[in-house]
């Protein structure tokens, strides 16, 4: 009786033109068309979006949280990548 579960889809919504699509949650649907229709009903009942992306959850690949420290560590000691690292003389404008 349980083998009929519809696949899981991740839903991404662009809240207005000019902004990125953002992950909002997931839902079950038999196919992409139904996933988009369901996403409309579940996640945009109050005009929360102007565009919807759906991706079958099995297609999402993620970084491993256990490796997060080592994985993101290389960026930690490169303060010179930020503008605040540099002293700009007060008399210099527009920089």
């Amino acid at each position, binding site marked *: 009786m349980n083998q*009929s*579960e*519809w696949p899981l889809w991740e839903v991404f919504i662009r809240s207005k033109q000019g902004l990125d699509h953002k992950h909002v*949650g997931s839902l079950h*649907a*038999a196919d992409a068309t*139904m996933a988009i229709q369901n996403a409309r009903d*579940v996640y945009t*009942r109050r005009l929360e979006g102007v565009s919807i992306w759906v991706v079958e959850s099995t297609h999402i690949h993620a970084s491993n*949280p256990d490796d997060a420290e080592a994985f993101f560590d290389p960026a930690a000691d490169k303060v010179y990548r930020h503008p605040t690292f540099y002293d700009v003389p007060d008399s210099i404008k527009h920089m």
Partner: protein
Amino acid sequence: METLEKPALTQEEQFQARIDADVRIEPKDWMPDAYRKTLIRQISQHAHSELVGMLPEGNWITRAPSLKRKSILLSKVQDEAGHGLYLYSAAETLGASRDQMLADLHSGKAKYSSIFNYPTLSWADMGCVGWLVDGAAILNQVPLCRTSYGPYARAMVRVCKEESFHQRQGFEVMQTLCEGAPAQKEMAQEALNRWWWPTLMMFGPKDSESPNTEQSMKWRIKRFTNDELRQKFVDMMVPQAEFLGLTVPDPALKWNEERKAYDFGEVNWEEFWQVVKGNGLCNADRLQARVQAHEEGAWVREAANAHAAKRKAREGVGA
């Protein structure tokens, strides 16, 4: 000689340290089994409550007194379905299966909020459900927006944004009745008499009889105890009932100047446990309606699967 090395923290201690630092836990992070189990139980119970919660109000959609009220009620019930879906998907991030959760609900193994096992006898009950039941739900849910498990907290943020309309429309129904004919006001009072105590039960057993509270607070799943929330609710609602000109059906209710809070009577815990155990007025009805809806939808689920498989085959993507 003294060694400077501290014993390494266990996985569990590291986990607790993150919780204490208010770092949210995300699906793939390590977590104690008991934390996962507690969350699955709580989130799925919460989802079931949203789903079953549609039934007492659904009862009045076709008999709402005007098109405006009907549209509002329909939207509210649709929101509750949405809340159920947000929550089921949050529970799935912990490894729970949707089918299994529904199967547990339908077999009676899983619990849902006992409030929905009370009948909605008159239109005024629609007012009380929105005003009191959604009001109590909001008090429960607002702190959950900061609960330690990320997907649960995010689902609750979405839910809370939608709940305040639910409460306001309920209050408006009550206000309209209270400003109407004496018979309408009487209807409102009778509904309050029916719903007041069951609503107080929504916050769960007394702290002294809620053995899981301490651990849930430590894990920051819960942020307030049952009794704290119940007290807040009473303090919030009594002035609103007074505004409506209604009497809260509790002879022991009295403002306590020292505590700056209301003293109130004892909930009938015997009734509470009876309803939890399945012996409430509507337990059997609610479950039967849920199971029937699920079974009658089976052919739709199968047809959609067949259609998807056929299309996949035609596109040559299928295996």
